[in-house]
């Protein structure tokens, strides 16, 4: 059962200084449709921020922009103060070389709604692929760490299984272990329980709570699990139409929302 206290599990206040993520005048459009416009916000290192809002409000797009899965059509994103995909050179917006962007994304991990494990690899191979081939770790070291991670997500006995033989909840826990194997500073969680059968949601959220309690990874999450969002996040941002409608500590947003729109949205999901 999830704990019911409404303070974040790891309640040390996130540090000040250089933000882990900064959005500066971000604009994103798909063809003629503008999804995000003039979006500015920062996330402090170690902060856990939940994005809520009706579908189509741009929350998932924000995560996908940080992971460079979508092309940024305007503005800048900074990770640890360094530009992610574009930088300003004498007033001109210049795209960075792909290789540079890829070096930046090694600090960022993402877990998807549909798990997206590689079906042509075993569970262990899924986890060690990037540590070995991107970070240049030795296979032995990566395997040792992968096994520790599998232990942590409760799947130590599944190292040699094929992902297709696992349940959705197990697959999602492997996907979490795979993201953590890169030692990310930032973890993006995109509706990670939405594709799961209700009885499997608890295991996955349990693993995420454990990570929130025991690490200081910056987290940006989109979720419909409001209780979970309340328990683990330091801040909740309510989006509507590509804009931040309101933001604040979970208690404030959930108990005393300022906007009618937020109230309506919360009453429809709670």
């Amino acid at each position, binding site marked *: 059962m999830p704990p019911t206290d409404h303070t974040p599990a790891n309640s040390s206040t996130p540090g000040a200084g250089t933000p882990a993520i900064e959005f500066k005048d971000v604009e994103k459009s798909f063809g003629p449709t503008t999804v995000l416009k003039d979006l500015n916000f920062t996330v402090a290192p170690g902060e856990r921020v939940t994005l809520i809002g009706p579908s189509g409000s741009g929350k998932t797009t924000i995560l996908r922009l940080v*992971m460079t899965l979508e092309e940024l059509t305007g503005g800048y994103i900074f990770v640890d103060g360094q530009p992610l995909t574009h930088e300003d050179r004498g007033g001109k917006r210049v795209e960075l070389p792909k290789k540079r962007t890829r070096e930046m994304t090694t600090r960022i*991990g993402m877990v998807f709604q549909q798990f997206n494990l590689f079906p042509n690899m075993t569970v262990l191979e899924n986890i060690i692929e990037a540590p070995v*081939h*991107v970070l240049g770790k030795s296979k032995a070291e990566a395997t040792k760490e992968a096994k520790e991670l599998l232990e942590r997500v409760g799947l130590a006995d599944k190292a040699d299984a094929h992902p297709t033989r696992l349940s959705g909840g197990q697959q999602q826990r492997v996907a979490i272990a795979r993201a953590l194997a890169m030692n990310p500073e930032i973890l993006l969680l995109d509706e990670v329980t939405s594709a799961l059968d209700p009885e499997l949601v608890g295991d996955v959220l349990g693993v995420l709570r454990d990570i929130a309690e025991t690490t200081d990874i910056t987290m940006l999450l989109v979720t419909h699990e409001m209780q979970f969002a309340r328990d683990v996040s330091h801040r909740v941002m309510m989006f509507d139409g590509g804009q931040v409608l309101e933001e604040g500590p979970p208690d404030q947003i959930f108990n005393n929302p300022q906007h009618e729109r937020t109230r309506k949205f919360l009453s429809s999901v709670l």
Partner: protein
Amino acid sequence: MNDNVSTLLNFLPQLWEGVQTTIILTVAGSIGAVLIALVLGLTMTSPSAWLRIPARIVVEFFRGTSLLVQLFWLFYVLPLLGVDFDPMACGVAALALNYGAYSAEVVRSSIKTVAPGQWEAAIALSLSPTRRMIRVIFPQAWALMIPSLATLLIQLLKGTAVVSFITLSDLTDKTEQLRQSTGDTMFAYSISLLIYFALAWLVQEFMNFLERRATKALGRRRPNSRTDRREAKRAARADAARQDRLKSHVAAGEGADRSKGPFPGQGGGL
């Protein structure tokens, strides 16, 4: 008829030579076609238009012109330009180019069919584009492309018959000789039909083998695969045996507890 058979027996060594020519053309042509298909197909998925468009033009050119004309061009026109190939090289090149162009489209579309989530997971792990293709996308696309490639390779086998126009003595050419020496059109062409059919069957079996391997690597099976059928049979046998034993127990008045199942852990198949 007896005359025909004795002529055929005398003719066997020659027929075998023809079959060998056909096999060499098929194998060498297939290898060439697959290599060309991989290069052109992968190039057609490139994000750079400078690579993609020329590859597309080459594919459309070789798909859009007839195999026979390509063959004549290689054999009769190139020597006029001072380039001389022996007939076998011309045959293999024409088959490889023509069927390679068709197969390139299969390679391209299979790569594009791999779930977008797989590409995204590979990007999220910061895998380089090469690594992403080799380790994640291609192994999955490969399983998708084999059935279409099998069809094209069988067509290639049958397409080898055109080389008899450029002085090569393949199976079709030898059949013609057999027809002339027996004077029995039906007999000669029926023999030829059977041999082509047997060769096509070998190609299909080989491709089935590759497909089984590829799908097994993805942790799934072809629909109604041999393994599936074998397991279904085993399950049915176990079930029948269980029913038999149950009956004999009942007959012996040994009141087996049916609700628990007489032999736990048996049968059930999948």
